[in-house]
């Protein structure tokens, strides 16, 4: 059986997409408020926010490289690479 293990509150804003990093220790959340929120699954705390998009962030993905770049895309018709 599957149980809810943890839950993160990203505030009064929609979470449009959530992805684990490859180590599964962080969850990256694409937020309607134009930020990417990073939660730690060990401490269950919010780590930080990545800012830069000028509209809602709609999707996230990882590249294939070992040092894992994050790619984000959103309403501002752009996509960004984070390293």
């Amino acid at each position, binding site marked *: 059986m599957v149980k809810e293990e943890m839950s993160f509150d990203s505030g009064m804003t929609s979470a449009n997409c959530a992805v684990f990093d490859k180590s599964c220790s962080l969850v990256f959340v694409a937020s309607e408020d134009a930020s990417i929120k990073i939660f730690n699954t060990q401490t269950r705390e919010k780590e*930080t926010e990545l800012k830069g998009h000028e509209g809602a962030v709609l999707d996230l993905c990882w590249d294939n*490289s070992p040092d894992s770049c994050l790619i984000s895309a959103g309403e501002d018709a752009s996509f960004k690479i984070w390293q």
Partner: protein
Amino acid sequence: MTNEPHMIPKRERFNPALNETFEASGPHLSHLKTYKGHLQSITALSYNPKKDIVATASDDTTWKLWSIPNGDLIMSGEGHQDWVGGCAFHPRGNLLATASGDGTVKIWDFVNACCAYTWSEHGQPVWKVAFHDTGDFLLSCSMDHTVKMWDLNMEKSRFTYRGHVDSVNSVSWQPYTQVFASGSGDKTVSMWDIRTSQCVQTFYGHQNAINSVRFNIRVSSPSCVTFSRREIELCPLHRTASRKCGTCAWSKKRCPSTVG
């Protein structure tokens, strides 16, 4: 298309991620580059499993391929009549599937630069698509409350998964298995097994519509599904904004399965 249905595997495949250790990506990420190239919102991303190429899907009815990290535009796909909400690369990297507000799912063969198939059985907008790791099957989820599974050898859908009572907004395969999760506007996540075509389990807990369902890459250790939610007050037709939000992780205590 041969019209010979693909066999649904009975056993799970080996998950290569189990043999690897990954360092935490860290909250230390910093912004590297920004690329503009669409006329409207980019709704979805997919990273090519074989090459350093990312696909973007957009409200401007097109999809595009970009080389990473230099951001050169490689190809642009036109053909959908309405927004494109989802895109996914085939595991071999030679095909791209897209889901659109025009109610169709298209498979693009970008090696031959053409639209290989158009599947239009969903009567309503299609949000997202996901390829099975074998590359033989594709899932699509739609505002028509269903998930459909398509066989790349068949012109018609292989199966329609019914059970949700609102739009199905997201669909994701549990890596290297025959199980997938769907997240819906009805605030539930359901797990389905394509061998039995049955709903295995439904999770309740979110207080708003579910936007996104994702697995972590390790299947056998406690595996997690994450998702988020949104309010159902519709803003634009195909995407809703909401004021309250959460993300949940779910775990399944289960022994690693044998590898076929």
